[in-house]
């Protein structure tokens, strides 16, 4: 028995084991994929069912079947024509834009000051902002409503946006990001005579794109989907946002399932479009903030 004789059998055994393990792995992986596909399909069912129903004429919707005998877009047409959904879209968009732009600007400016400048009360202000994270917005709806009433801001977009702009979490996201930027950047710029505003706008912010993206997307999506607060302050159907409009205004025609599902689909379209465009940013944003914990 030579050394190679001894070695070769073990080598053969190892390749056999590896092959067995490999095939076991492959089978297991295939089962995993199968289970996952099944659940993913289940998860898709509600939205697909809504779409299916929306494409039926109303009379067919009482038959619970996926088959559509007379597919039609009529339900969508009726919703677009007879409800204010386009107006609600305009409201949602305006409010979300105001909120997003406001949040990004206010939070990044404040974070820049907290991160890069030294001044009296810096510690105190930092803790004040930290306290804000502890306060869930829902706790404030009653006093905030009275406040808006006093300022005569009820039934305006400002009433919805202004309380949403000062988001403490956004300040922290930006501050964390700014803290990680090298100080040399600013020193060079300051030596060239640049003031704080120039440094902030021309140097810091362009570098902060990932943080801006994360904050902007979160602000936009949460503003768009917010229900409780706009429900309280927007009672004029002309300026309601999509969630409030869908939640409040009933059709006067009794139960028309196709129309209802069509309005649901139309209400979902704007954000689904945003999602499809920004999938990666959204997911990275969540993962990033999550991991940083």
């Amino acid at each position, binding site marked *: 028995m030579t050394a190679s004789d001894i070695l070769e059998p073990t080598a053969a055994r190892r390749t056999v084991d590896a092959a067995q393990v490999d095939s076991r792995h492959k089978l297991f*992986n295939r089962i995993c994929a199968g289970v*996952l596909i099944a*659940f*993913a399909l289940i*998860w898709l069912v*509600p*939205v697909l*069912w809504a779409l299916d*129903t929306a494409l039926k004429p109303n009379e067919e919707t*009482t038959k*619970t079947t996926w088959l559509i005998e007379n597919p039609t877009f009529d339900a969508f047409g009726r919703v677009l024509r007879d409800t204010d959904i386009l107006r609600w879209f305009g409201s949602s968009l305006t409010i979300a834009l105001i909120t997003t732009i406001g949040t990004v600007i206010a*939070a990044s*400016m*404040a974070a820049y*000051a907290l991160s890069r*400048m*030294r001044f009296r009360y810096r510690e105190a202000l930092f803790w*004040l902002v930290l306290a*804000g994270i*502890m*306060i*869930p917005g*829902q*706790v*404030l*709806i*009653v*006093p*905030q409503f009275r*406040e808006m009433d006093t300022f005569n801001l009820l039934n305006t977009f400002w009433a919805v946006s202004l*309380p949403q*702009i*000062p988001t403490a979490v956004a300040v922290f996201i930006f501050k964390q990001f700014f803290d990680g930027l090298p100080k040399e950047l600013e020193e060079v710029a300051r030596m060239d005579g640049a003031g704080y*505003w120039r440094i902030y706008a021309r140097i810091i912010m362009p570098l902060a794109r990932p943080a801006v993206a994360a904050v902007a997307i979160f602000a936009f*999506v949460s503003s*768009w*989907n917010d*229900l*409780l607060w706009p*429900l*309280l302050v927007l009672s004029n159907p002309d300026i309601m946002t*999509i*969630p*409030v409009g*869908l*939640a409040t205004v009933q059709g006067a025609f009794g139960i028309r399932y196709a129309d*209802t599902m069509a*309005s*649901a689909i139309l*209400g*979902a379209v704007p954000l*689904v479009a*945003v999602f499809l465009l920004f*999938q990666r940013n959204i*997911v990275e944003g*969540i*993962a990033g903030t*999550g*991991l940083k*914990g």
Partner: protein
Amino acid sequence: MSTAETAVRPSTETRERPPKAGRAERHGRPAAAFLTPFLVLYLLFIIGPALYGLVMSFFNTSLVQSGLGSFAGFGNYAEALQNSDFWSSLWHTIWFTILTTPPLIVLAFVFALLADRASRGRWFWRLAFFMPFILPSAVVALIWIFIYTPELGLLTTGLAKIGIEAPVWLGDPNWAMPSLAITTIWWTLGFNFVLYLAGLQEIPRELYEASSIDGASQWQQIRRITVPLLGRTTTLVTVLQIIASLKVFDQMYLMTQGGPNFATRSILEYVYDEGFTNFRTGYAAAVSMLFFLVVLAVSAIWFGIVRRQEKGA
């Protein structure tokens, strides 16, 4: 050269020599300018109302009357703590949290595990599981109310085909909350899924390879490697989930209006009913404060756990 340096250095020295007050002054004004937009809105719309709400809770303030109303001392708090509606809505909220949190963590974890193994088709899992998360609650409610419709809803007819008689989902006091829980799980699982997936991808492959060479089975790998390394993520997911569940309002308001017979009314919906339907804003403010204490307690517990984890890790 040296004269230039000395020419430069004295001036920088003179710039640095002035006392801290001088530096603070120089930073103070631009700092104030940068802080102002955020701070003004923050004080006006967050801190201000928080204090105002606290004050209001000690008065019998009414939505339709100006001013603070008559002084009530701790009356509102006493009423809330003795009121069965308050306790039952708190219980409903906790019950909702219990019904939704474990599935939302376990299922998200399992799906993320499965998705991590599948190298291709990531966009498909993401679409399927995460898309519901970005839908507004009103859309989710409309779709699921239709699915839960007695007689012709998808669930009822589907179950009938396999011979199970479905309950009246949203109308049965015993089934209303589980129905809302099912809807919520469908709606928000994607968020946890993404978090877990990201966490899973952070785990180095070598750990798995090394352990499988040592003969570890898939199961053991999951138990010994995956779960512990995801500890941080799980804690985060759990706490975020619990706090979000405590704040639940939309599903109840949209799908059951807190019914049947207030069986699903959450604590925030109770605040809404008392403050805005019954006009009793002073009392609602007191209930809000009590709710805030509950959320604070949960956050404090989380803080403690995270601290301990970090010390241990």
